[in-house]
């Protein structure tokens, strides 16, 4: 079970452009779980605190605040907010900490980044763990339409009106997003402290530039991104996890599984986008079983 653990080491890592990011290291040994959190624009707290407990099972765990988040630098140049640049940043962190081959765990946006990283630096991976993420954004967007539609046609028409007029701060629009967030992002009535910390410091710069204004409207530079046709090149063992109520839906997860040569898929029935907090008793055994089977590669 997750708990908040102080990192054993904190690293300032210089990256391209003269910026620095901050990485957090827990435990030691040859089996490193390297965490890429979602957002983009979120500090790594919510994913770090959910996985630092893997040290209890002999794993080293590394997470980092991506550029623009948490303790990393916060530049405002929107040209920095591209998935290609984040791939290089990820590689620079791996090199700087001398992590060798890693179990790369990407959640949500961290999964998109993980897929892109795996295609760019395939030799850096032992395994790839894709949690609550997708390989095909246009397919995801069609799935989000389905989730929005469950709020009824009048609600959808209202949302589309505010989206067309750019009045997304209107309380009526925000109310619809709030209902969807508690349904498809985290189904807990009270969101865990690490989730709140990450959300409270959300940098909307990278999020708006790459994804969009909220979880149910994609307008950023990733909206046409689709790596399904290339995912056959990712030959390491892959674990895909998703929640039945996940905003990045089980259909998105299945699409990745069918594209990957060596993938297994687990869907948590009472979870949405954060099974590690929503169903921890079901989540950790699945993750540990996969990791234990693929040690020492």
């Amino acid at each position, binding site marked *: 079970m997750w708990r908040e653990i102080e990192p054993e080491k904190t690293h300032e890592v210089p990256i391209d452009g003269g910026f620095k990011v901050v990485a957090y290291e827990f435990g030691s040994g040859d089996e490193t779980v390297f965490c890429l959190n979602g957002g983009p624009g979120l500090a790594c707290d919510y994913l770090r605190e959910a996985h630092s407990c893997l040290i209890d099972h002999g794993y080293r765990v590394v997470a980092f605040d991506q550029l623009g988040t948490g303790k990393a630098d916060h530049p405002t140049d929107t040209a920095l907010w591209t998935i290609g640049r984040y791939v290089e940043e990820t590689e620079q962190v791996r090199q700087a900490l001398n992590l060798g081959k890693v179990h790369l765990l990407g959640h949500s946006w961290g999964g998109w980044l993980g897929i892109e990283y795996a295609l760019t630096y395939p030799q850096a991976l032992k395994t790839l763990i894709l949690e609550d993420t997708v390989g095909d954004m246009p397919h995801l967007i069609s799935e989000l339409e389905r989730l929005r539609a*469950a*709020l*009824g046609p*009048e*609600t959808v028409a*209202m949302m589309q009106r505010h989206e067309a007029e750019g*009045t997304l701060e*209107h*309380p*009526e629009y*925000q*109310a*619809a997003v*709030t*209902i969807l*967030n*508690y*349904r498809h992002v985290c189904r807990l*009535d009270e969101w865990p402290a690490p989730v709140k910390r990450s959300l409270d410091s959300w940098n909307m710069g990278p999020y708006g530039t790459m994804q969009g204004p909220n979880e149910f409207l994609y307008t950023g530079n990733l909206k046409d991104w689709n790596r399904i046709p290339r995912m056959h090149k990712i030959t390491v063992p892959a674990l895909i996890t998703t929640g039945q109520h996940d905003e990045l839906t089980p259909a998105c997860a299945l699409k990745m599984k069918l594209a990957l040569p060596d993938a297994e898929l687990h869907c948590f029935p009472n979870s949405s986008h954060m099974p590690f907090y929503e169903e921890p008793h079901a989540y950790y055994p699945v993750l540990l079983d996969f990791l234990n089977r693929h040690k020492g590669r």
Partner: protein
Amino acid sequence: MTERSVLADGFVVWEERPADATFEVALGGGHKVKAYAYGDGSEVVFLLNGGPGLPCNYLRAPHLPIVEAGYRVVVHDQLGTGASDHPDDPSLWTLERYVEEVEAVLDALDLERVHFLGHSWGGWCGIEYALTYPHRIASMVLADTAADIPHLLQEIERLRAALGSETVAMMQRFEAMGNHAHPAYKAAVDLLDFRHIRRLPERPKPVADSRAGFNLPIYMAVQGPNEYHYTGSIRDWNRIDQLHRFTWPTLVIQGQHDVLTPACGMHMLNALPNGEIRIFQNSSHSPFYEEPRAYRRALLDFLDRQRV
């Protein structure tokens, strides 16, 4: 000080100004309420606002312009609201006591017969008042109200259901737990409010002023935690079988999207011996703000036909 909202062609949507006369009315129990009168003349329109627990600002402001058409407008802050006393005694929050309060106001101002306009809760209280003191009623406007709360609750289920079955299940779960403050539950209520209470991007100032003075314990005791969940003492109230006693002309008003739905209006109309109905197609619960011209025209058309 006068505040107004005026359209480009000079149409006054609402107006707030000091009353031409104010009255402190003593109620039984030693409490006082404040009443406001505008204009003069023998044709009195008495306004009774909704809530319960709201100061009268929101209903008064869009009706002050009818003073220019020759009507005297009288309204009061109901006990527990606005400039009236704010006792902290839950036993006061009953329909029967509010009926006596209305009678005390009309009696104190020496208003023998009035055109009685009740909005929402003001309609429920108005119906009960008219059944108790029928001799004071010259005519009646039942605006965005209902006479049969169990029927209304069925109608509200229909409005909630339009948010989808998973949303309804979520609302029912929080209602069962008594947690009406959770952000997901409040979000569903917000969505319904913008759809069925006021289809406007922002609250007009008099509405915001009334909301700022909302005495929620009164609302909770009589109605419930919000417009879509009735837990209070009114929830079994039904006067449909008494409306045949309304011998005076009665105008029923509803918005097509009204939380107190057009079906609630029709239910009253069918029981009224001398009723007529107007449904405002682009309005919900506040046609005087949502379609102010059409509303004013319909109201004055009715009132002008009732002049004695």
